């Protein structure tokens, strides 16, 4: 049995509330799901909507989405009191539960992502199977299911499948993430969560986090690989990020304004919370540095038509800020909701432990794991479709 991690509090809280039920792992879970949906959106820009400027990053974004998706269930399973019973939720789903369908949605989406990756990389894998030897050859042959048909007919068939998968995938990815928002938003026990806007807010923040991640990783990979960054592609992602950020910020502000304006019973404690313990996390980090500042930086760069190194530095900083902001948003929702007592007469403080199954170290490992997998996948299935020097001109 792990040591009890109790939460200090002020005011009056129910005695059983002094152990925060959903820990940092449950804040990481929607963060990862959001990255999946966002990165998938980036890849769909090319695969579904045919936007050529997203081509250099489309396959990489797809692998990013897959890498994150593989680890989405991990924080949930780690948090369970009985991880070995996790499959009960799929064997005997209790349909009235907002969470009962998660396993099915996640599994469906996982299959969809794997299928899409298979079609996207099929021609490359056939070529690799033919050019490699030994164990590696067997691996690529197995991956292509021993098919080496890369005729025009077969490629056309691949293209149709890809389009269909991307079209199903977009509502799938956003549905999955909106569903995560519903898991919190549908609870009537917590005023901080019980918002109809929650699923929509989750979707918009998902898109911006995935977009920001793809931008950072694309720039990072280009630096490591010492190739020239495709400016048109980067600018395309910047526009999408910028636009969606404004929507995300507006929706969150609306959600908060609604809560305050309605001023239902217990609003005093919410005001005390946001103006006290949550002030820095909410107004300064999430809204100020994480949303307003990047919107202004990117807006300024677009207005001044900034190019070259300055643009890349500005965009990298903005994207990192967005990633921090969205994580903070997940934290402020999941942890924040639990820091406001159900009595509406007291506030708790969640202090995550360093060690243990639900500690900071475990959480960090869960966050790093997708990137290790992504590194491995990019080695096995190089996603880069670099433009020729002529094209880049």
């Amino acid at each position: 049995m792990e040591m009890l991690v109790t939460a200090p509090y002020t005011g009056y809280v129910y005695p059983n509330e002094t152990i925060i039920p959903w820990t940092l792992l449950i804040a990481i879970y929607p963060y990862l799901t959001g990255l999946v949906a966002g990165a998938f959106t980036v890849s769909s820009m090319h695969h579904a909507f045919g936007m050529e400027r997203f081509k250099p990053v489309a396959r990489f974004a797809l692998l990013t989405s897959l890498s994150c998706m593989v680890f989405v269930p991990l924080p949930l399973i780690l948090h369970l009191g009985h991880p070995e019973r996790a499959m009960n939720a799929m064997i005997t789903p209790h349909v009235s539960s907002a969470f009962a369908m998660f396993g099915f949605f996640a599994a469906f989406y996982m299959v969809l992502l794997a299928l899409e990756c298979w079609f996207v990389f099929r021609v490359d894998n056939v070529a690799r199977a033919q050019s490699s030897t030994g164990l590696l050859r067997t691996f690529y042959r197995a991956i292509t299911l021993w098919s080496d048909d890369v005729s025009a007919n077969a490629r056309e068939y691949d293209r149709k499948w890809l389009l269909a998968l991307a079209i199903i995938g977009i509502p799938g990815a956003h549905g999955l993430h909106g569903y995560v928002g519903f898991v919190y938003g549908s609870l009537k026990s917590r005023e901080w969560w019980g918002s109809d806007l929650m699923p929509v807010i989750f979707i918009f923040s998902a898109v911006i986090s995935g977009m920001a991640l793809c931008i950072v990783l694309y720039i990072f990979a280009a630096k490591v690989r010492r190739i020239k960054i495709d400016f048109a592609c980067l600018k395309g992602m910047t526009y999408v990020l910028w636009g969606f950020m404004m929507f995300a910020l507006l929706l969150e502000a609306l959600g908060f304004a609604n809560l305050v304006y309605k001023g239902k019973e217990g609003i005093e404690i919410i005001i005390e919370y946001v103006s006290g313990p949550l002030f820095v996390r909410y107004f300064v980090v999430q809204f100020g540095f994480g949303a307003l500042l990047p919107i202004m930086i990117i807006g300024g760069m677009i207005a001044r038509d900034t190019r070259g190194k300055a643009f890349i530095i500005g965009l990298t900083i903005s994207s990192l800020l967005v990633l921090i902001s969205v994580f903070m948003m997940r934290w402020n929702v999941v942890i924040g909701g639990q820091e406001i007592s159900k009595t509406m007469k007291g506030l708790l403080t969640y202090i995550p432990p360093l060690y243990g199954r639900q500690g900071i170290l475990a959480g960090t490992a869960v966050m790093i794991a997708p990137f290790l997998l992504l590194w491995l996948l990019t080695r096995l299935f190089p996603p880069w479709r670099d433009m020729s020097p002529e094209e880049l001109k």
Partner: protein
Amino acid sequence: MSVTQESKKENIGRRDFLRVSAKALAGAVGGGAVFAESAAQGKDNEVGNAATSFPTEDYDWKKHRWAYGIDATRCIGCLRCVEACKTENGVAKDAHHFRTWVERYVYVEGEERARVDSHSDPQNIAASGSESEYRFDNRYKDEKVTKAFFVPKMCNQCQHPSCVQVCPVGATFRTEDGVILIDKTYCIGCEYCVQACPYGARFFDEEAGTSDKCTWCYHRITKGLQPACVEVCPVEARIFGDLNDPSSTINEFIHKNRVHVLKPETGNAPTCFYVGLDKEVS
């Protein structure tokens, strides 16, 4: 089926569960433990629905409709109920796990809002000297108190329980006689129910790795006994009985008083009825 009777006592329900589990295990050739558990649960439901004996052979859960009454005007805050509950149900004896607890509301002259605390408040623990001994300190001895009262709290055994609604595996359920139980052999320990309960009545049992809550001492009431908290209450602030019995004390309590429930706006429809609540009680 094993219900939430962690007092480690042998009971027929548990033996039933083991018997069914053994059958299911024998049947699940090549299947994993989860499949066996699933089969066991399916079988359990059959027992519950087809036969009328649950959890013991001579108890018919379709013949009863339990309800609970709390007269807050009578409660003296002695906390015997809390102690009895912890002992009877094997609840961890610390300040963070309670199937029932008592709140103290005190209006001090010149203040609009009540000051609220429970026995798990650090000051009260300091006064008792131990987390496993329950006491209210005498912190208001120098204040001019205009109104003060105690409110016992516990699971409200709702007719539309949010905890049952959100359980992803159906491990928590409402019995035919109106009590919410947890099948601890099936609960995955996700704590969604802990989140969903508007009353803070559920907690996570770290030792079992599952959720836990008040069962109105289901192992006692199905044998014709009173819940432990009702049994020990020296002032009859806690009343328990069968709504199907017209002469029961609970029916009398409901008929003779104007009763309230906690947080009616949630739509949970508690079957725990209160007398003597105040605007500050939530």
